[in-house]
């Protein structure tokens, strides 16, 4: 009796947890398909419509431009940060470099510097250079947040790969670069993919930098959300539609690499 009760109790608790996690997301998805009138009632009886999506992609909201900005900024940041970080992570993981501990400590520490400290000087610099409200500015500041994080994460992944195969390749006659290309990269591929997606998510969701550095031309999706707060009040149905646009690509990515994702979350910290 007691065991059956416990068994069902555990399942019920899990269900409750799933509901708490899913509810806000589901509600947003529902609202995105509601007419304005329905959005302001909590009724589940409504005729779904795509009109919100049509609206947000047309004037004056032009969500399409924001999508382009977000994709460009996140993709470029990832393309620069991940290869550089991968090389550094490999070096940190495999070589006993003089001063390695200090460098690693330095890079780790920068991960904990509040973004708001970095953004002040960047704002001033970009103002002088005329780079305010450009994607380049966003890419540069995002690199600051993302690079140390990826180094940390990839080091965790590379540490877990045994060195045997690399040494075997060295002896089989491969140069160090050849070893990295032929052996390390294919073996570290799941880790690199995970780091890439983590990095993409961080940049994609980044809010503070974009809020400060962009006005009109380089606005990204999260900052775009704020623009639905108008003089007529908050346009919830449109916000939700924009929210769907922000979350869907990220959710797909996260779920695709689900197994590695949870490993990546704990990489580095639990050692």
């Amino acid at each position: 009796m007691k065991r059956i009760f416990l068994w069902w109790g555990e399942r019920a608790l899990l269900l409750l947890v799933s509901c708490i996690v899913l509810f806000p997301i589901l509600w947003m998805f529902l609202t995105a398909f509601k007419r304005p009138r329905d959005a302001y009632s909590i009724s589940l009886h409504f005729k779904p419509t795509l009109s919100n999506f049509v609206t947000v992609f047309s004037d004056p909201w032009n969500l399409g431009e924001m999508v382009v900005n977000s994709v460009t900024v996140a993709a470029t940041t990832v393309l620069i940060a991940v290869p550089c970080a991968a090389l550094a992570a490999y070096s940190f993981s495999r070589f006993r470099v003089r001063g390695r501990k200090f460098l690693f400590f330095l890079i780790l520490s920068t991960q904990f510097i509040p973004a708001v400290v970095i953004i002040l000087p960047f704002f001033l610099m970009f103002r002088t250079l005329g780079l305010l409200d450009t994607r380049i500015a966003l890419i540069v500041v995002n690199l600051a947040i993302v690079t140390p994080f990826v180094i940390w994460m990839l080091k965790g992944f590379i540490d877990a790969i045994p060195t045997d195969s690399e040494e075997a390749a060295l002896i089989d006659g491969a140069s160090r670069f050849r070893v990295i290309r032929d052996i390390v990269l294919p073996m570290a591929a799941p880790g690199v993919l995970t780091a890439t997606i983590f990095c993409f998510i961080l940049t994609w969701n980044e809010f503070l930098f974009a809020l400060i550095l962009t006005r009109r031309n380089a606005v990204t999706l999260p900052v775009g959300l704020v623009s639905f707060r108008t003089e007529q009040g908050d346009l919830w149905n449109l916000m939700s539609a924009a929210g769907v646009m922000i979350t869907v690509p990220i959710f797909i990515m996260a779920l695709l690499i689900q197994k590695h994702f949870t490993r990546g979350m704990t990489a580095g910290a639990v050692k």
Partner: protein
Amino acid sequence: MRDRPLSYLLLVPAFLIVLATTLYPLAYSFVIAFREWDLTKQNRPGTFVGLDNFTYAFTEPGFLNSLWVTTIFVVTSVVLTLFIAMSLALLLRRTGRMHTFTRIILILPFAMSPALIGVSYRFMFNPEFGVIAKGLGAIFPALQGVPWLASPDLSMAILVLTDVWHWSPYMTFMCLGGLASVPRETEEAARIDGASGFRIFFGIVLPQMKGVLMVVAVLKTIFALKMFDQVVTLTGGGPGNSTETLAYFIFNVGFKWYDMGYASALAWILTGIMMLISIWYVRMLLSERKVATA
């Protein structure tokens, strides 16, 4: 392994990025922190004012308020997150279809944009048409018509709620990682020795989880100290300045009042707090690793 020149060469690109995007701006803001600089009046840094910006901070009600707000926020969100994460980890530890499903679901909050989380909670707690506000009102008549986000205490509570919702899943995965590293044998030995589930947890499992829980607590503290996104999209710092966290306050000083010198000084105060915590954290990590490899 060998190849000394290469090992340094590999570090160069990443190091240049960190140098240019973090170390240089840090130095720049450090310089500004000791100067007077009202951006609405002048385009170059003003006169050197020594520690004035710092001493001023500790007499100014706005800063002191944000310090207090941040403290409350950090303490409540860290304690709640830690408790929930640990409980969820214990719940999810076993295998089962429902367990796997919940684990997958748990990835979603972390992947969601914090700004969007703020927006959707603001929507759900709207007293006129928010689904949570209405739902709670229907279940508990006493909660009908409560102006959730117009009350200082309640809006702080919702701010904490959004943060806990966002971070608990991530921290749950960390705790799960920690639980996985607790050897089953000790637990089984204790069970055979006749210890109850309760005693096994507090006497055997929890002590071995100490390291992981410390890491989770410190990481969460650092993230909580930076709280900004949801403040903008959920409460706007209000009502009044009841949810003005440090990061949000600094943002206001810098980009609403354009007082660059003061904002830099404040940013450095926040950095100081975080550096102390992170140095302690990194040291702990390194020493834990030493123990692990020994």
